[in-house]
């Protein structure tokens, strides 16, 4: 048997072997800023001195790429900062790079990544590995656009990322909800499912006409989470999944997720291409869009409040596409963020960029051109600004905001995501003969639990 080296002991070992080295000047700036002793003008001046900022983000969205170059770069140039947008194929690549650099002794101010578009497990990894710049988000001037009062439940998405407290080490950038679209040229309105049971009977009548993105891709993970919520044997939906692995026993988690996983197993024989032997799960967003456009699948589920509106605008969605409420009550809603790594070489410029990204102007422009929903909170804005945001929206097609809000559900705790993801891979992809309980127990063990 292979010795199981836990992540935690690994981190401990790393901490022991590599002390967070530092460039003294950068370290002093970081300490001053985080303790509130640097005024914003000084930050901006320092940013201009640094002269550049490297933002790493998933480069698979052409619209976002255009917006970065066309809008963000000039806005930063005005502040004397050259934007270097690094397009990566997976957020984990940037996280790996930060950690690799950290482990090779590149400390404060000595890395190469200034900012990462992030959420969920990747953020949790950075946090666990102690590779964050620090609690900067609430010190940004534009943090007034966000709700930080934790007594307001609406503040949850700003302070917790996949259930993990983010300690303001990242600033919200965009809010999203997992929405499904139907090709109404192929499916009659009365056949559009709104529950998992209805989806199953649709698939029995129309085998092969649906699939979801393959976990561990976050679009796939989210679908699995929704199925798990909807099949929660206690009927408590998302609630128990807000706890971290530390607070929930593996047997309990296995009991909670088993019906959902079993459901996913049960629809497998009727998923795309299952007739040919094994069901096919697309690798990413684009592959999913391609299947949906060609009518290979009738429903496409992903994060994308305005995906249909934008997809019609650029020709990647079928003309008869429209959104629908699915699954009732468990449509996961979350935010994604911008994080500054601890060893960011241009931390002041990163702060300036983060601040600009939290501005009303940038959010309006992002909404208009990219169709990425606003990440700032409307009720914190002036009526005029709030209205600008509403007007900038490309629009929902087939559903209303009220319907979406009414069926919203929170994300699964990032630490549980790993376990659920591992369970899916083991049970569904690898057709493991082990029981779900055993699989969950193994996943826990792998996490060092």
């Amino acid at each position, binding site marked *: 048997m*292979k010795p199981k080296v836990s992540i935690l002991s690994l981190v401990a070992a790393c901490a022991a072997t590599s002390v967070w080295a530092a460039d003294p000047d950068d370290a002093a700036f970081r300490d001053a800023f985080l303790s509130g002793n640097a005024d914003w003008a000084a930050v901006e001046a320092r940013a201009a001195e640094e002269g550049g900022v490297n933002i790493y983000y998933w480069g698979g969205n052409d619209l976002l790429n255009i917006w970065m170059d066309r809008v963000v770069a000039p806005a930063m140039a005005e502040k004397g900062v050259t934007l270097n947008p690094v397009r990566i194929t997976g957020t984990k690549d940037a996280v790996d790079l930060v950690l690799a650099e950290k482990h090779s002794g590149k400390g404060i101010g000595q890395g190469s990544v200034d900012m990462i578009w992030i959420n969920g497990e990747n953020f949790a990894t950075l946090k666990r590995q102690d590779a964050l710049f620090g609690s900067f988000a609430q010190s940004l001037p534009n943090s007034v656009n966000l709700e930080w009062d934790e007594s307001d439940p609406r503040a949850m998405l700003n302070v917790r990322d996949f259930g993990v407290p983010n300690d303001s080490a990242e600033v919200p950038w965009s809010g999203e909800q997992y929405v499904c679209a139907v090709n109404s040229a192929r499916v009659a309105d009365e056949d559009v499912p709104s529950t998992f049971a209805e989806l199953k009977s649709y698939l029995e009548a129309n085998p092969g006409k649906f699939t979801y993105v393959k976990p561990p891709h976050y679009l796939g993970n989210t679908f699995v989470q929704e199925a798990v919520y909807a099949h929660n044997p206690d009927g408590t939906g998302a609630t128990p999944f807000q706890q971290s692995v530390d607070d929930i026993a593996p047997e309990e988690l296995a009991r909670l997720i088993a019906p959902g996983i079993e459901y996913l197993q049960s629809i497998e024989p009727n998923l795309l*291409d299952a007739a040919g032997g*094994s069901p*096919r799960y697309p690798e990413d967003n684009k592959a999913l869009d391609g299947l949906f456009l*060609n009518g290979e699948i009738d429903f496409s589920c992903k994060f994308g409040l305005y995906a249909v509106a934008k997809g019609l605008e650029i020709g990647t969605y079928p003309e008869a596409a429209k959104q629908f409420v699915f699954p009732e009550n468990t449509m996961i809603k979350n935010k994604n963020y911008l994080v500054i790594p601890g060893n960011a070489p241009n931390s002041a410029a990163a702060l300036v960029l983060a601040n600009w990204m939290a501005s009303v102007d940038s959010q309006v422009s992002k909404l208009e051109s990219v169709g990425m929903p606003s990440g700032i909170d409307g009720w914190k804005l002036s009526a005029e600004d709030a209205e600008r945001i509403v007007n900038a929206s490309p629009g929902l097609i087939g559903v209303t905001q009220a319907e979406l809000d009414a069926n919203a559900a929170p994300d699964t705790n990032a630490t549980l995501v*790993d376990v659920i993801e591992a369970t899916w891979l083991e049970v569904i*992809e*690898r057709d493991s003969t082990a029981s779900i309980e055993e699989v969950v127990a193994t996943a826990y063990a792998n996490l060092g639990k």
Partner: protein
Amino acid sequence: MTARERRTRILQMLQLIPILSVLVILFGGALVMALLQSLGFAPWFGINTFPDFSYFGSLWGSQTFWVSLWLTLYYATVSTLLALVFGTMLALALIKAFPGKWLYKYLYKLPLMIPYTVGIALAVIMLSSGGVLSRIVAFAGLIDDPGQFPQILKTHYGWGIIAVYVWKQTPFITLAVYAVLLGIGRETEEAAAILGARRGAIFFRVTLPQILPGIVSSTLICFAFNVGAFEAPFILGGGFPDTLPVVAWRYFNDADYTLQLQGMATVVSIGIVAGVILFAYLWVYRRYERRMGRH
């Protein structure tokens, strides 16, 4: 050896330093590091259990490793053989005269000049269920839903992967065989014909033994590439269980950093498997060469 001879010799050896430093330090170093890590030496992760064969043990002990290995070798072998047959046939046709030959000689080499990723893009647009072939079949009225089109990509039969390899490597083998064919000329074939040999006997007894060196070296390169290729099986493969390079890559990208050592064991396994097969191939070939009077 006189002093002068020694000086010349030393000067000559100095010229080898740059190439040796690239190959020994980087190439050799990478291999040694891979081996060390796969045996549990990774102090930068706080792991040092060297020598520790458990990574290989757990890898080789799992059934999916053998399935992955089988898939890797299956794709590599089938596509090399197909490319060999197609390439040799093409080379035999290309030595003949025909109108438009100059253009054809540009055309057939195109895949050689462009990256595999282009080949993958072509496979995607032609062979996927929503792709051009599927549409043509639909146009012919044979199917009315893309789901009815037989699945070519993303299956463990690997048609798509094989198609891309064959597309890219047929010109490569053609070129190698064609160059050898030009070198040997037509006379031995003519002599064989006059001696009474028919088409099959001429090819198998006279032509083939002479082009064999070109075939061996080009198939060797293709096979080794196919075993280590990543992009085609990653995009066009049938998913779990993946080919070994994809498995290794997935280990490296796993959230669990300790799996990188498992990944290294996979990498070393790829090297061992490729090495054993290629050496066996070369050994058999060398024996054959000796029998053919070549050294």
